[in-house]
């Protein structure tokens, strides 16, 4: 093991407790299903009162908080969390792309603001970012077999050898690593790496080209990271 601490973090992630506050039952079930795949401990609340009860009784490592919930506002819950000094691990998930709510939410200490609809891969990435910020004050590494990815320094080492990645390649690999063993659709990847406006592109063929370069670099250095193409709609990173 090159960096023993990393594997400890990886296992620690698996015991993370996450609370979903979302009134829409369908969406709540999907989020639960997806988060369970990440081996998190998942609890959920459908309205203001049950959410309030849960946050006052338990500590969560990350809270996904919808703003428009029955019997109250998610922002009120956020305020309560702020008073308990527990608002820094909240990700607001709102259908309202409202600047006011975003500002209020972030001012109340929320970590992030995600507008519905979002891609599952994007939610995974945001949750990982919250968990990492919460539990690591120093450097961030992700290790997959013989490959170490340094988020802070933006470097990639395979068997201790530095592999040069350009900015986009780094961002792509980072996103895949945050979604390890999960499907990342081309659209989700494009929006993450190239921004919202990329969705006007007539096709995502250019992504294939980027992935091809990245794969070549990983293969040439015998990395344990494998990027598979899934049915031509997306990709999945896994360990060989």
């Amino acid at each position, binding site marked *: 093991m090159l960096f023993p601490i990393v594997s400890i973090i990886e296992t620690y992630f698996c015991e993370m407790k996450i609370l979903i506050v979302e009134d829409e039952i369908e969406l709540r079930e999907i989020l639960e299903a997806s988060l369970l795949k990440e081996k998190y401990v998942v609890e959920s609340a459908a309205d203001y009162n049950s959410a309030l009860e849960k946050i006052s009784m338990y500590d969560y490592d990350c809270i996904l908080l919808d703003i428009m919930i029955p019997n109250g506002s998610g922002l009120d819950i956020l305020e309560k969390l702020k008073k308990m000094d527990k608002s820094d691990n909240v990700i607001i998930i709102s*259908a309202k792309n409202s600047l006011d709510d975003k500002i209020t939410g972030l001012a109340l200490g929320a970590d992030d603001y995600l507008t519905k*609809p979002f891609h599952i891969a994007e939610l995974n990435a945001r949750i990982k970012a919250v968990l990492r910020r919460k539990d690591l004050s120093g450097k961030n590494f992700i290790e997959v077999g013989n490959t170490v990815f340094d988020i802070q320094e933006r470097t990639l080492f395979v068997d201790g050898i530095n592999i040069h990645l350009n900015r986009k390649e780094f961002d792509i690999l980072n996103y895949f690593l945050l979604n390890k063993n999960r499907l990342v*659709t081309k659209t989700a990847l494009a929006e993450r790496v190239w921004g919202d406006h990329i969705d006007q*592109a007539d096709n995502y063929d250019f992504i294939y*080209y980027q992935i091809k370069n990245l794969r070549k670099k990983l293969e040439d250095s015998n990395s344990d990271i494998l990027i598979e193409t899934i049915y031509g709609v997306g990709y999945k990173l896994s360990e060989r």
Partner: protein
Amino acid sequence: MKLHNRSLIYLSLAFLFIIGIWSVVFYINLKDEIRDSIDDGLENSRLLILQKVKTDTTLLLQNQFGGNNFEIHPISKEKAHKFKDIYKDTLMHRANDEDLEPVRMLHSAFEHQDNYYQMNIISSLIEEDDLIEDSFWSLFWLFIILVASVIIVNNVVLRKVWTPFYDILNRLKTFRLDKEEGVIRTATKTTEFLQLQEASNALIRHSKEAYDSQKQFTENASHELQTPIAIITNKLELLLESENLQEKEANTIAEVINMADRLKRLNTSLLLLAKIENKQFIDEEKVSINSIANGLLENYRELADFKHIEIDVVERNDLGVDMNASLAETLISNLVANAIFHNKKNGRISIQITDKEFSISNTGPAAALNPQTIFHRFVKDQTNSNSTGLGLAICMAICKSYEISLDYSFKAKEHSFTIDFKNNIQSV
């Protein structure tokens, strides 16, 4: 033209008209009055002369005016019987004047000791042109004094009286729906101004209500549509992860995900358009078009490289504008993205930034686009099914909301868009 001046003009015209008519009437009356009194005098002279003739017959020989104001000629009896007293205006030579002078003359006949005589008595008249001239000047000065007093009254009194009106006007001029402003309260007791104030406040209240409910609708529509789209997308994404999925099924799922993404894009674009048109983007700041453009080009470099598009940027100056940062970004981004996405393989893009303008031209479809409809909603390139047909409509809405111009032209087989920021250049 200001209210003051307009009322001054009307008042002056009215004065001119009234004084004109009045002076004619006055002049005629005055003249009649003068004639009457002269005629009375002539009648009086006649009686006096007739009395004198009874005692002094030499008067009957006075057949020329000479120094007196009468002359007497003998006439036949028949003529004398037919004679009636006539007053008339006539002209005569007077000793003190070379010109003919206007006189009033009384022709009369009388009998003295069975002889009949005609008597003409005169009395000098006021010279008419002198009268007219004098009256004209006095009326002229009256007119000037009236107009002058109107100006003074206007400036001093009316200005004071109209102050509440200008207060209300200024409030309405600077009124903006997106700013929280109190009701208009002007210190006035004038009924009309109070009514105007009330009407303005009612109008403001109604607009605010309409604006707020529109805003509310925009946000609610967003919420109501985004959640089902989120469920569709996320469910399908999870479904794609399930094992034992056939390639064909997976592709179908992927297609549906793409459709849901398109729906999401349409929804967010329409909401963005509505928000721009409602002027819900308020915060303005100093934005550098140069750095936005360069950032976007860096971001889209892989796309451009993939299509082998050559990009040529000429920055003649720093273009700094006062705009909402995210709208500025959207505006430039849509144009840059268009230039890349609608370009052909091995094409070209050239961007030019001056101190007032941003222009971008690109190779692409061989024919010019219709400049009349290109900025309309849902006008789109049929070959690109991913396009929402709202990109340029959004650009146009942004430009309209900032009163900056966005023009399309087709020159030398290149499509070119130019934004002229001259209305939005920050004041240094």
